[in-house]
């Protein structure tokens, strides 16, 4: 018999914080390791093989330890306070995204009524941190990188919001749990075309939002070193660049899985598939999305900043705007027509 446990609101909050702080770094390590290995195998090499013994599984721990030992340098002319604060402004939102992602029907930290709204808002906050980092570094490369990141955010936040709006229209709710519940068939498959296009737009815009190739101009190492993080070193570099990048990668993969692949629901509504627990479905779908993001990186060259803007404003945004009209028409007329 399970003893009845009653917890006060504070205790629940502490448990939730503990869970999040345990899960996010774990996910980041796993995804970071996957990035090493997936990229290596796509490029005819083995990637890390030695740290930890088995296929270099401990490479990121070793990497982290290395960064821990490095000197923490703040440039003399930098704005010290903003420079240090920027790390938190980038790192904290990356963790907070995970609060509303429904891993299973009841496995969610906070089921907000405006979950998707919160998600999109919080994931953009880190750009303020990037701007802070770029401005306070007293480095021209950092400044260029920060401005590129700012421009990119404005251009690519819109397609993400608009494609999420399509999902909201189709499901009729802003709550992520309700959105998943609305997907007996994942939106990727049904309604035909609409969900697929929205998914493609979302994926492309996410890659830009994550500043990963081919949209990695804000941190393009062959042009502007590491963009806004050029002057960051040691643990500061990890927590302002590497960790949030991978954490956001997993977060966006999870968002994509939730919005378009049906989250914790089976991929097709078959009774047999119900046996598999929801969090397994969710993990599989997230892993698929992570792989998709990792696959894109070694495949494409980098676009130029103006080409990227053109792509966003002339292709993605008009497409999603048209898609919203189509989705509206579908929501209005399709249920009667198909009945």
């Amino acid at each position, binding site marked *: 018999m399970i003893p009845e446990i009653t917890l006060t609101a504070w205790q629940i909050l502490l448990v939730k914080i503990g869970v999040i702080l345990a899960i996010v770094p774990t996910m980041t390590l796993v995804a970071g390791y996957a990035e090493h290995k997936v990229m290596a195998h796509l490029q005819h090499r083995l990637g890390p093989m030695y740290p930890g013994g088995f296929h270099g599984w401990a490479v990121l721990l070793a990497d982290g330890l290395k960064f821990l030992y490095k000197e923490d340098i703040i440039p003399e002319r930098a704005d010290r306070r903003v420079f240090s604060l920027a790390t938190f402004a980038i790192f904290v939102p990356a963790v907070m995204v995970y609060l509303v992602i429904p891993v299973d029907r009841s496995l969610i930290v906070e089921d907000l009524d405006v979950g998707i709204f919160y998600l999109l808002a919080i994931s953009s906050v880190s750009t303020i941190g990037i701007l802070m980092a770029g401005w306070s570094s007293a480095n021209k490369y950092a400044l260029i990188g920060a401005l590129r990141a700012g421009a990119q955010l404005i251009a690519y936040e819109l397609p993400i919001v608009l494609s999420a709006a399509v999902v909201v229209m189709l499901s009729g709710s802003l709550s992520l749990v309700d959105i998943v519940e609305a997907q007996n068939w994942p939106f990727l498959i049904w309604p035909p075309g609409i969900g697929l296009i929205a998914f493609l737009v979302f994926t492309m815009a996410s890659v830009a939002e994550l500043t990963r190739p081919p949209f990695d101009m804000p941190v393009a190492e*062959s042009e502007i070193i590491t963009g806004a993080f050029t002057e960051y070193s040691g643990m500061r570099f990890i927590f302002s660049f590497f960790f949030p990048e991978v954490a956001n990668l997993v977060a966006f993969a999870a968002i994509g899985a939730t919005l378009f692949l049906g989250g914790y629901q089976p991929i097709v509504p078959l009774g047999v598939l119900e046996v598999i627990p929801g969090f397994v479905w969710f993990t599989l779908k997230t892993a698929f999305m992570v792989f998709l993001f990792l696959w894109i990186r070694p495949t494409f060259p980098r676009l130029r900043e103006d*080409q990227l803007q053109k792509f966003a404003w002339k292709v993605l945004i008009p497409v999603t705007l048209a898609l919203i009209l189509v989705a509206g028409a579908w929501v209005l007329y399709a249920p009667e027509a198909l009945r």
Partner: protein
Amino acid sequence: MTTAERVVERFEAGGHGAYVESYDPRDEHMTINMGPVHPATHGVLRLLLELDGETVIRCEPKIGYLHTGIEKECEDQNWRGAVTAVTRMDYLAQLFNEQVYCMAVESLLGIEVPPRGKYIRTLMVELNRIQSHLVWFGTQALDLGAMSGVFYGFRERELILDFFEMVTGLRMNNGYFLPGGAWEDLPDGYERPLSKILEIMPGRIDEYEALISENPIFLERTIGVGAISKEDCLRLGATGPIARAAGLDWDIRRDMPYEAYPEVTFDVPTAEAGDVYARYQVRMVEMRESVKIVQQLFEAMPPGDHKNMDPKLMPPSRAELNRSMEAVIHHFKLMTQGYSVPAGEVYAAVESPRGELGCYLVSDGGTSPYRCHVRDPSFVNLQSLPVMVQDGMVADLIASIASLDPVLGGVDR
């Protein structure tokens, strides 16, 4: 006034000093030092950039951060020993440096290289050209963000370097040629690795092309970027793939044949656009042509001596030292003093992967060069960079540098 003329005028006006005087803080331009330590400046090239937002208003290459004094070093070496120094200039085209230096010494001495020696040297430099172009391919792709390219390029480069190691004992800085031929004959069993390279290379070049040539992002990033006209190439002395991509049909291998080139047939690829993509195409075809040249040389490799056996120039073999007093004397003279070369001056030129590589050599009749000056194509081609990047964006600048393929060891010497 063309862009090239403006750039030339600006250089003549006094370079950096003139730049500082013309600086006006009110125009809100950003002055930025790209390099000497920067991931995409191919070593230690420093570019003084003036940016308006991301548009390059002005670009001045600053060199000298890898100055090694090799030209001066040659004056302290004997004629044969200087090969070891010149091979370290353009470290990706090491055998070309050796070849052009040896050709210069040979024409001062007035000696001939036996046919097998010529064939070996030509074969080795053509492999070196492929190797150098593979590094260019990798870095060009990497600088445009296609990071996989570098792994593909270096995969095949490794085979060629292994072959170099087999033949010369070293992967780079081989010191394999010497005035009069090549140090050693090709080793036993060199045929297998060489035919393996020749067999797989065309397919692998197809693979690179499949990877990048028609990638829409790559096309977008390279077509019309960093363009330079044929006239500007002539004006600025640009040679090699840069000039050929701009429509200048000039290749020293074909137009002033040397070594074994008269005996092989090959095409010289040219393009008209003069942009980064045209240079990409020209270099890709050049790799294929080099494979063909190596194939022909390999099949027609003549027997005989691999070097000029004049005992006054070449140290005698070990076996000969044991039985001939004369050989011991020659050996002693060559190893202590070296041979002397008749007084005079000479210019020899070869087509290196980057363009015309020339060696101007002066002898005062002594046992070491009086002056050894190398016209390195990286150095000369670099002055066309400001023309290419004028009014482009920073990202175009990176693409242009990569397509120039400068080796800073060659630029600074």
